[in-house]
């Protein structure tokens, strides 16, 4: 199964996303609408998607859309524990994407919901879905506009009690994992066609 992004509705970049007509001509895909928007807007467009499975990032939309689609709860909702899983199940989700940082503890998760895990992922400075660095520095919001400027990739001076003690960078790292889940995800939309993570404006400022 391939996840494809719907233009205007998915995280990361519209440049790699498809419009509704293109998506409805594809076979065997699931559709990512994991940018944060009001539930009724998401529900309306989901009704026009011919495919069975969508990935969503808004809890009221999950509740509404799960009545007529299989809904995967996006990693942007940062499901971290069994109470999260229980809540997503209550809302009607079919599966939840678990952040890659939790791969080693995937066996501790409640199996009442299908779990999608990352076999290949960029591990970032913060949990996916819990970062507003790009919006804070550049007014480019992953959650709201689907755009990330990767401000984490800068070289940072570490100041301790006023003095510089080190330099650090939090550039996202591509990692592969040997992990079992109901579905294993291989993240692709953050990479360009050469398999390189796109750093936005901070590529030249990056340490590595």
């Amino acid at each position, binding site marked *: 199964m391939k996840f494809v992004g719907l233009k205007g509705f998915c995280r990361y970049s519209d440049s790699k996303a498809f419009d509704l007509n293109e998506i409805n001509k594809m076979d065997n895909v699931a559709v990512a609408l994991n940018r944060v928007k009001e539930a009724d807007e998401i529900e309306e467009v989901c009704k026009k998607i011919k495919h069975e499975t969508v990935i969503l990032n808004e809890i009221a939309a999950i509740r509404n859309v799960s009545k007529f689609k299989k809904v995967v709860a996006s990693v942007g909702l940062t499901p971290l524990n069994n109470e999260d899983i229980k809540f997503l199940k209550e809302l009607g989700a079919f599966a939840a994407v678990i952040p890659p940082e939790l791969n080693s503890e995937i066996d501790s998760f409640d199996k009442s919901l299908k779990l999608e895990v990352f076999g290949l992922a960029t591990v970032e400075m913060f949990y996916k879905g819990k970062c507003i660095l790009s919006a804070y520095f550049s007014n480019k919001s992953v959650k709201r506009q689907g755009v990330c400027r990767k401000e984490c990739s800068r070289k940072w001076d570490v*100041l*301790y009690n006023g003095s510089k003690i080190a330099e650090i960078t939090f550039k996202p790292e591509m990692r592969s994992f040997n992990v079992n889940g109901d579905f294993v995800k291989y993240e692709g939309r953050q990479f360009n066609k050469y398999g390189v993570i796109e750093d936005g404006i901070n590529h030249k400022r990056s340490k590595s």
Partner: protein
Amino acid sequence: MELTTNVPNLESMSECSLKPYDAVYLGMPFCFEYQGNLITEFDDLEVAVNLLRKWGKKAYVTTFAVPRNKDLEKVYRTVEKAAEIADAIEASNLGVIRYITREYPDVRVHVGGLANVYTVSTAELLYSLGVSRIMPAYELPIEDIEKIKETGVEVELVAHGKIPVGIGHECFLKRFSDTVGKDCPKICMDSMFFKSEELVLKPFGHATLSGKDICMYEHIEKISFADALRIETISERIGYREAVGRIYRRRIEKGFSKTDFEKLKELAEHGIANGFYFNKAGQLYIPG
């Protein structure tokens, strides 16, 4: 309108420093290991709640913001204790929020800013599940927050202080334990910042805070529709909590003072910003 703040441990509480506030969030939500953290030290928590009662303040208890399965038992214990003695419980994890509304339907639940309430539809859903108050996602502008307020749920907004710009599985301070010769939990008692060109961040537990202080002193009328205004002081010293609280109390009761505004700028080591209230990059400051 309530003026609120937060304190991590009993050591950070004094009657003087909390005098300007109507209600106080007890506990450090970004790290269980913080010294004397009131979300795990229940004897201290009882003392803290009793002190707040004596001083005529409301006592709210916060919970760990990013609990994994291994943390849930600790969270359940915090919730059980808080349900017994506090006026409300704050949670930022959606599963924990639902757990509290389900298991403790009579307890007031306040949703923290890291819960990512971006939309009216999310706010309506949480309100229908029994949530009393929401701090909307930090990156929302005023016009979007006003729509959330129209759902009927109480809204709390950060008026001043450092906001989290991210939270993860790791405390970045610990990476420098060997370099500075201090281990957890002592290392976070000192000042550490990350700086790149003009950009500054403050690592604090699992969270990383804006280096700048969000400051709505000049613009307070624009967010006065909120039910509560928060002075974020979880990573600050007692003196900061007291000074900023007094200034905002005067602002609410007596109006603008240039002297007070200058004092706020002095207290902000890395400058002030408006956050996202005006639909700009959070680190910018728009003069009033």
